[in-house]
């Protein structure tokens, strides 16, 4: 293996046909390059998406009322389920619940409202919140404070606004805290400005919202005891999936919804979303490996092909070597070594080029860049690719080597 002559032989054989060797090497190079680059960007996408999801607390359950579809306890189907303040305490008693944040939105889900400040107006979502919501969905305070228990208790007309709202309703450089904004004719004192930690679509939407105390919301906008939906944080020992089941069962019982009714109580949990994304990336990773390995395989077939020709061309030489005392093993190992060398060198070059490209991309993208973050391959992936490569190289040599070993010295020496 570490025989200088052997390496000289291989060098000679490959050098005799520079163009053919180069084209063959290019096939393997390209396969490896593609595999590494695709894996790297796949990882980057995963880092980016999962990273921005992580910034949301992952253990969150959302539940809302819907129209029932099954008759139960004397109630007809088609009844609208409405949550009330009384449900807050009930949910809090469900084991595994850490935070309960009742929420209301002015005008219903995702509708916006005209907000006025002086001569400027804008259209934003207005939500009623409790302090717990800011623990479930963390955000960065730019100025002032979040809604506090005292706001809630005294039904103060205070508001915490998103960065985008501040930018559109206030002058550049002006601190909105201490100023009033007008929501449906009522004046609210801005006490805080926030922004989201990441900058994907969802964060952009959040930056354009206005949050007022939950109790104030119900009072000012005539919501009575109504709660549109709950955001519920699970404690560290409870999975969001389990908690959703428990909370929904509790609410179904309280609101006389049939336990088997698929509607009536709507729900969603972050774990499920996270799981979906994980599954998606599992699929992407499989796809990337599949395409990459197949591209590499095409390159390997090229190597195998060139060696077949080389063996054919060297029939006489191999026959002579056999006559002079070369064992079948030494002939086979010579060809396999040639295959492994050709694949290893060109594949390694592809690996290095791929990693280099990923490094450049990673640097260009910077620390935090939304859906694509720190593309790259870890050591174990690189090692796995290396193992695939060596295996591929050996495989490329098998058929040509078998042909070489089958060469009969008699026929080889007499073929003039």
């Amino acid at each position, binding site marked *: 293996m570490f025989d200088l002559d052997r390496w000289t032989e291989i060098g000679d054989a490959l050098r005799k046909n520079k163009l053919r060797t180069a084209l063959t090497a290019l096939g393997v190079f390209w396969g490896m390059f593609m595999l590494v680059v695709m894996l790297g960007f796949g990882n980057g996408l995963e880092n980016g998406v999962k990273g921005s999801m992580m910034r949301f607390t992952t253990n969150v359950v959302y539940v809302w009322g819907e129209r029932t579809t099954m008759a139960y306890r004397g109630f007809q189907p088609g009844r609208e389920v409405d949550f009330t303040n009384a449900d807050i305490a009930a949910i809090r008693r469900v084991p595994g619940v850490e935070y309960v944040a009742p929420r209301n939105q002015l005008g219903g889900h995702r509708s916006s409202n005209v907000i006025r400040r002086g001569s400027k107006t804008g259209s934003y979502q207005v939500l009623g919140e409790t302090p717990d919501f800011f623990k479930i969905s963390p955000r960065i305070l730019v100025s002032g404070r979040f809604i506090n228990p005292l706001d809630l208790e005294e039904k103060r007309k205070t508001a915490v606004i998103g960065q985008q709202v501040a930018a559109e309703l206030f002058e550049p450089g002006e601190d909105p805290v201490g100023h009033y904004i007008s929501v449906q004719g009522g004046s609210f004192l801005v006490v805080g400005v926030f922004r989201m930690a990441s900058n994907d679509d969802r964060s952009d939407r959040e930056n354009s919202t206005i949050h007022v105390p939950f109790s104030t919301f119900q009072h000012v906008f005539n919501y009575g005891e109504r709660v549109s939906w709950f955001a519920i944080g699970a404690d560290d020992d409870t999975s969001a999936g389990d908690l959703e089941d428990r909370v929904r069962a509790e609410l179904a019982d309280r609101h006389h919804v049939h336990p088997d009714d698929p509607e009536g109580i709507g729900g969603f949990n972050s774990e499920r979303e996270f799981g979906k994304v994980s599954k998606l990336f599992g699929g992407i990773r499989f796809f990337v490996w599949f395409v990459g390995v197949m591209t590499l395989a095409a390159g390997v077939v090229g190597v195998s092909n060139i060696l077949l020709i080389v063996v054919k061309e060297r029939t006489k030489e191999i026959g002579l070597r056999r006559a002079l005392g070369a*064992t*079948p093993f030494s002939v086979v190992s010579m060809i396999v070594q040639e295959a492994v060398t050709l694949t290893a060198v060109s594949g390694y070059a592809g690996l290095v080029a791929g990693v280099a490209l990923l490094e450049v991309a990673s640097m260009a993208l910077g620390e935090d860049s939304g859906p694509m973050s720190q593309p790259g391959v870890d050591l174990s992936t690189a090692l796995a690719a290396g193992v695939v490569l060596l295996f591929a190289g050996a495989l490329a040599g098998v058929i040509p080597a078998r042909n070489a070993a089958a060469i009969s010295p008699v026929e080889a020496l007499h073929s003039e």
Partner: protein
Amino acid sequence: MIRLEALNKSYVMSEHSLHVLKDLSLEIAEGELVAIMGSSGSGKSTLLNVLGLLDRYDSGAYHLGGKLARDLSETEAAKLRNSHLGFVFQSFHLLPFKTAVENVALPLYYSGVARRKRNAMAASMLERVGLGDRLDHLPSQLSGGQKQRVAIARALVTDPKVLLADEPTGALDSQTSTEILELLLEVNAEGRTVVIVTHEPDVAARTRRVIHLADGRIGEDRRQEGG
């Protein structure tokens, strides 16, 4: 040194089989100089291939230096070829991309001799065959006679007991043929067994034993005074 007992060898073609060697029995002692003659198709090349462990036989027995050839694996046969046998071919069979020294050193590579040592051994062997000034020449830069000298040097470099030559002068002019033949006689004088397959009576005349093959059998086995 070489003992054949009722040896049979056939080539199986697609439809019929060709019986090439028929119940061939032959003994060649150590140090003999033997010419094998015969018309083409008489089986002399096949016999040489069998003697050189390059080809298998069907029945009978072939003992080389006390070893039964049939029992040898491919790997063992390769090792025995390397250490016990030297080959000289009509068309030289030198590797064109290797220098004279590298060509001669090739068998030593397969017997595991270190590079520096085998190049030194190859160089001294080339000096012995009169090519001390052609060490780093490629085969294409050598004349036919010189090429055959390189081939003989290569055959001798592992110090084999037996030298097998297949028409060694077949591609050479008469002057050069004589020189090559002299060289082979010297090799024999060192005590090595030399077997020469030839169809040239001039060559056979210089040996001490001439075996005529006809149709796969020994037609005549004549001892003579070589000269």
